[in-house]
């Protein structure tokens, strides 16, 4: 029975590793400027985790195979080096690995979070609310009009609570149900929640940031490939959480201008 168990562990280990080697299930392709560092980190981690996983399961299987049963005539033995060697190995090997991953990771994190957006970044605002995202472009005046929460009325399609009659800045604001950005242009995304916690997860752009009700956040990114990608909410926000998504179109500059004009006319 012990030998069968050992073989079972081995088979399960190999079967688990196959889809990873074959890359059967993988993230959507990266179309962001900063994403390569994240993907590299993921590969590094996969190698290290994979080797640790394979090695430990194989050793477990091997020891179960070899050291089960009463083995008459043999005495029980102690692992050479005893605990001390293993503790040192754990601290050194794991410690190095772990610090390496940590330190490399700092660089990618810093690029996203400790580096401010450039001066030419295009500001776009996204508002998350049960259960849709609405996007706001500031229009030719370049500034976003104030949000009046008491004026928010989805019934009247006033998702942001804008007072376009009285607030000059709001008059040219463009509110859209989908997002579009010009390719290779840095975007400064202002994030606002209308009600509960939501999250802005765009796998293709390698960005993931929770909204915090009561706290407006900002992230920045640059999309590098034209296409249509999905934004999904990843923070449980209620019964419609699974259907809270929007599309982001990355367009050529000309197509983006045309899109923005069309949205302005739709207001």
């Amino acid at each position, binding site marked *: 029975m012990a030998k069968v168990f050992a073989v079972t562990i081995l088979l399960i280990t190999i*079967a688990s590793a196959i889809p990873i080697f074959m890359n059967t299930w993988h993230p959507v392709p990266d179309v962001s400027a900063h994403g390569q560092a*994240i993907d590299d980190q993921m590969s590094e981690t996969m190698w290290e*985790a994979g080797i640790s996983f394979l090695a430990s399961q194989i050793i477990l299987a091997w020891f179960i195979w070899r050291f089960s049963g009463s083995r008459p005539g043999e005495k029980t033995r102690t692992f050479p080096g005893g605990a001390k060697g*293993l503790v040192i190995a754990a601290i050194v090997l794991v410690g190095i690995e772990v610090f390496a991953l940590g330190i490399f990771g700092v660089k990618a994190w810093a690029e996203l979070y400790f580096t401010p957006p450039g001066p030419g970044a295009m500001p776009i605002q996204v508002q998350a609310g049960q259960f849709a995202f609405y996007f706001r472009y500031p229009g030719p005046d370049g500034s976003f009009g104030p949000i009046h929460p008491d004026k928010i009325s989805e019934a009247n399609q006033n998702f942001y609570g804008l007072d376009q009659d009285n607030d000059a800045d709001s008059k040219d604001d463009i509110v859209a149900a989908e997002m579009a950005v010009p390719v290779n242009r840095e975007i400064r995304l202002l994030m606002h929640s209308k009600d509960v916690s939501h999250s802005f997860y765009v796998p293709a752009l390698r960005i993931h940031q929770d909204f915090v009700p*009561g706290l407006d956040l900002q992230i920045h990114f640059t999309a590098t490939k034209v296409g249509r990608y999905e934004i999904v909410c990843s923070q449980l926000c*209620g019964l419609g959480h699974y259907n809270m998504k929007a599309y982001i179109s990355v367009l050529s500059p000309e197509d983006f201008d045309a899109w923005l004009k069309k949205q302005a006319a739709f207001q």
Partner: protein
Amino acid sequence: MSAHAAVHHGPPTSFIRKHIFSLDHKVIGKQYYGLALAAVIIGMVLSWLMRIHLGWTNAAIPGLHLLSRNGAPGDVMTPEYYLQLMTMHATFMVFFVLTTAPFAAFGNFFLPLHTGAEDMPFPHFNMMSFWTTFVAFCVMVSSFFVGDGPTLGGWTQYAPLSAVGSVAGPGQGSGVVIWAISIAIFCVGQLFGALNFIPNVLDLRCKGMSMWRLPMSTWAWFITSCMGLTSFSVLMPACILLILDHVAGTSFFIPSNLVLNDQLQPHSGGSTLLWQHLFWFFGHPEVYIAIVPGMGIVTQVLVTNMRKPMLSHRTLVYSMGALAVLSYMVYGHHMFVSGMNPAASLYFSFPTLLITIPSTIIVLIWLGSLYGAKLRINSASLFALGFISLFITGGVSGFFLAQPTIQIMLHATYFVVAHFHFTMAIAAIFGIFSGTYFWFPKMWGRMMNETLGRIHFWLTFIGVYAIFMPFHYLGLAGNVRRYQAFVVDYMQPLIGVHKFITVAAIFTGLVQLIFLYNFFYSKYRGEPAPDNPWQATSLEWSTTSPPPWDNFGGRQLVVYHDPYQYGVDGAHGDYVMQDSPEQIKGAVDEP
């Protein structure tokens, strides 16, 4: 140092004192076990309903409308009902199974036996700890039947979804309040328990029982109690603040200007992140509370079945202690992208990566101890070995999640669900199974059926890998969690994987019937158990199966050895019991 404070209470006389409001830690332990068994069945059935829905979203599940007034009209699960079932699944499993069975159930039964005490130091508090937990359980169950059902906000109950009330969704009114009341009561029960476990270890050890002579499972329970004391005492006030936001018009967790369903909410001044900090300060130690007792049990089962000590028990104890201490410094890894200061994400990431070290040491010591062993294969040891395999897998996925950069891709995906199910749902459950097969003879005085135990092990081991390994792949592909259906374009190809998982889950769940049958049949009809069926050394095996009401029949216990005297030259058999006064040259305490 060993103190001699002994607890004396007379034998129980009435039926109620014997079986219901019992002061006997052994009865209390069995009551906790029964509660956990009921909770795990509920939690498992809830998971089946969830899994069927995920594979076949618009299918009618016959009879579902009977469970809920509005949750499943026409037997088709509504989106909110899925979330309600999910929240209850997690709540029952984390609190009433994983905190209860390995810690409160086995700990209550065996801690006094391991220390050589007659009972816990405060038997009345101990009795209250069980009944308080039982009341919490009943309150939680009642939420299914009140108003529009249980809360749908996940066992994590993030604010403001949890705090603004029913406008946020079905179950977010009375459902949240009932959940929070139940959990607050649960916390009180756990505090009563911790306040017994800790003084038992510190003050009630019998003569000769130094701290280092305590068995590993007792060290694990001791460390877990310390974590419980300090973490549940944070969760309870957090739940009270949440209740106040509902019933007293406060806004601890609700900022101003929130608009739900086109209604401006009458709250201001609160912080949504505050709830997350309070919850995860409890939540991370909680997951170690769920796993550390299992580590202790597995160590004890393995030592007995390897017929040799671990390479270093003190190292294992120090490592478990390190896990406990570090567990308070890592909680922010649940909040990397939460909107807290991104620098804080890095500050939490480093201890999270560091916590790999004690976990690795523990696994390496187990593996290294297997070297040269004469491993007995039985149900208990199979589940213990299975624990190691599952804990390795679960730990390895932690590598990914410890890094904020990687969490950009994996946060809130099925990768996280894979990680915590491997470590908590299956490794910890294997720890419970291992402990059950090992200690059943002592607790109920009969032997379990070994053949059924092995069948149970084989089918479960393969089954749980089949269920949960694919969760990693789903996570890597970006499958977001807590979705009741998959309407997102890039997730369409993943639905087939979900169907596979559902089939595996139902199969594996049904396999547990073998365990239930074995458990109940053996309880009443099993072979009578000898005092020491496994030739083990710790004190519980030196008394009858089951032990008498005062554990050791009034004997004055003296301990001469640590519990690792296996494979000793010159010993009668190949082991020496802790309280054996035999002078054997080879029986030397671990240095």
